[in-house]
């Protein structure tokens, strides 16, 4: 009996203690868009996260959609049928994307969230809860991901604690290209090849200038030398292949000539097309 009084508060540690999540920027865009389009009386938006679980345990969040819900002080109601319809539709396109969790806008985790999390954990073991602060309450838009951990006292479930997990924003190469135009509110035209090249080269130039300045500073003693950075720089400079100038020139000239040949071919083709078209439509039938 005395032993019964000394029950220990157990926190069932999740077996995946070093869990983390990766989010694609598309998900953030989706969430913001749904937030902007929410019905007037709703304060926040709730939706499902789709994605996959990578073999090393990280959750890869790739897509999302909003689920209509009603919320009042006491209860939360979620449109479950809509949720299932959307999952089925999305899986028709991409069968690899499964439910991995849910999101809500707004800063903290509220009481209603626990209920919703419960619902989602019936669909998927260990769902991830993502909060996106669209109100910019801390002066910045914080995005946090949580896992729920059950607090149990002996046999009784007491509460669910939301533990934060590290979040990583991933961007695929092609998306990164378009990123500049995604940042501003309006872009007048998509940059074409050469303009993009120019921008990239300017950035590279800026990088090189920075490195130059740093080395100068170190040499003149303005900045303390950091050995690891120094090693990185020397590695980079050494990675330029050691070719004699004549060999290098020959390489460059060969490639240049190849490109020129291709350009010439394509211009010939275009001239040919122009001629052929004139001949074709100008032919008179008696």
């Amino acid at each position: 009996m005395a032993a019964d009084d000394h029950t220990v508060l157990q926190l069932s540690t999740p077996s995946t203690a070093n869990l983390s999540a990766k989010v694609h920027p598309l998900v953030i865009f989706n969430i913001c868009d749904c937030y902007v389009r929410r019905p007037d009386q709703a304060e926040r938006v709730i939706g499902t996260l789709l994605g996959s679980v990578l073999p090393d345990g990280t959750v890869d969040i790739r897509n999302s959609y909003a689920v209509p819900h009603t919320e009042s002080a006491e209860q939360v109601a979620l449109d479950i049928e809509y949720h299932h319809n959307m999952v089925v539709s999305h899986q028709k396109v991409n069968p690899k994307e499964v439910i991995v969790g849910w999101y809500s806008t707004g800063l903290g985790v509220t009481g209603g969230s626990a209920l919703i999390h419960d619902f989602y954990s019936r669909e998927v073991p260990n769902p991830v809860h993502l909060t996106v602060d669209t109100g910019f309450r801390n002066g910045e838009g914080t995005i946090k991901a949580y896992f729920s951990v059950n607090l149990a006292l002996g046999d009784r479930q007491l509460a669910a604690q939301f533990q934060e997990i590290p979040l990583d924003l991933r961007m695929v190469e092609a998306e990164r290209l378009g990123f500049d135009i995604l940042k501003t509110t309006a872009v007048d035209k998509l940059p074409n090849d050469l303009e993009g090249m120019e921008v990239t080269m300017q950035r590279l130039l800026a990088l090189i200038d920075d490195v130059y300045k740093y080395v100068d500073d170190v040499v003149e003693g303005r900045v303390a030398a950091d050995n690891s950075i120094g090693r990185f720089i020397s590695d980079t400079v050494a990675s330029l292949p050691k070719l004699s100038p004549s060999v290098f020139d020959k390489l460059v000239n060969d490639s240049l000539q190849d490109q020129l040949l291709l350009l010439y071919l394509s211009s010939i083709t275009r001239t040919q097309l122009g001629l052929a078209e004139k001949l074709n439509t100008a032919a008179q039938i008696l």
Partner: protein
Amino acid sequence: MANSMAKSFLQVAATEEVVSPLRVVQIEGLVILKIIKHCKEFSPALVTGQLLGLDVGIVLEVTNCFPFPIREEDEEIEADGANYQLEMMRCLREVNVDNNTVGWYQSTILGSYQTVELIETFMNYQENIRRCVCIIYDPSRSNQGVLALKALKLSDSFMELYRANSFTGEKLREKNLSWMDIFEEIPIKVSNSALISAFMTELESDTPVTQCDYDRLQLSSNPYMERNMEFLIECMDDLSVEQQKFQFYYRSLSRQQAQQQAWLQKRRADNMQRKAAGEDPLPEEDPSNPIFKPIPEPSRLESFLITNQIANYCNQINGVSGQSFNRLYLMKSLHDN
């Protein structure tokens, strides 16, 4: 007084609303990301999807999109596809997304998208929607470091001709239509809501190191160029096949005309004889004679499309060569220093 007012109202109601020409397609960043993601996931397979948005004057706003599942060639799944579309539209309507179809998007490989199917799809869409646009995204070019997104529309004169289904030389000369006029490319504008741009600005680190897109500085563009040239050569072959068809047509036409002339001469000679003999002259035309049957002129649609594709490939080659020049010179100067 009231009469004249009523009449003016009738007049106003009777005047057709002037359709302002489409000048700009305004796409939201969300749509671009979705298109990129969908096309990239399934590349090299070609995928399509639907565009949703609003049609406002000279601007066509595209605010959302959803992908189509890859369709098997099966009859029952056709109905499934239609169901899927209705389901998606209904669900999106519930979350206040614009429910209006304004076009579709598709992915392509190396810009080889000018096919007859594209034109047919356009005509299908045009029946129901007054203005629709097709967005083409090329994931293979994006690996080269360019955001290859294009908005296309069929030109009006071409659509009229297509409906009449006649592509003879006469008609084309009348309309002054050349292969360049089939598709019209519309400039794209990107817009984002303020919330999203706030998020993005904050999420992206400001250090230039992570900002640099190294893909564009890659020196090796050879595989891409090789594939481009292969496609180009195939297209040239197709074009020469079409040319041969035309040659054959002209040759048979001139042969037929020679035959007609010969027959006419003979008929005339016969008639002279008959006149001399006092009989009725035979008619100078004989529609039942097979040499008078008109030979159909082959449609020029295919050759136009092929020419379009070739032009596209050439443009791409030009673009990539330009980039390569830049890169080579950059490398040269780096090395010299």
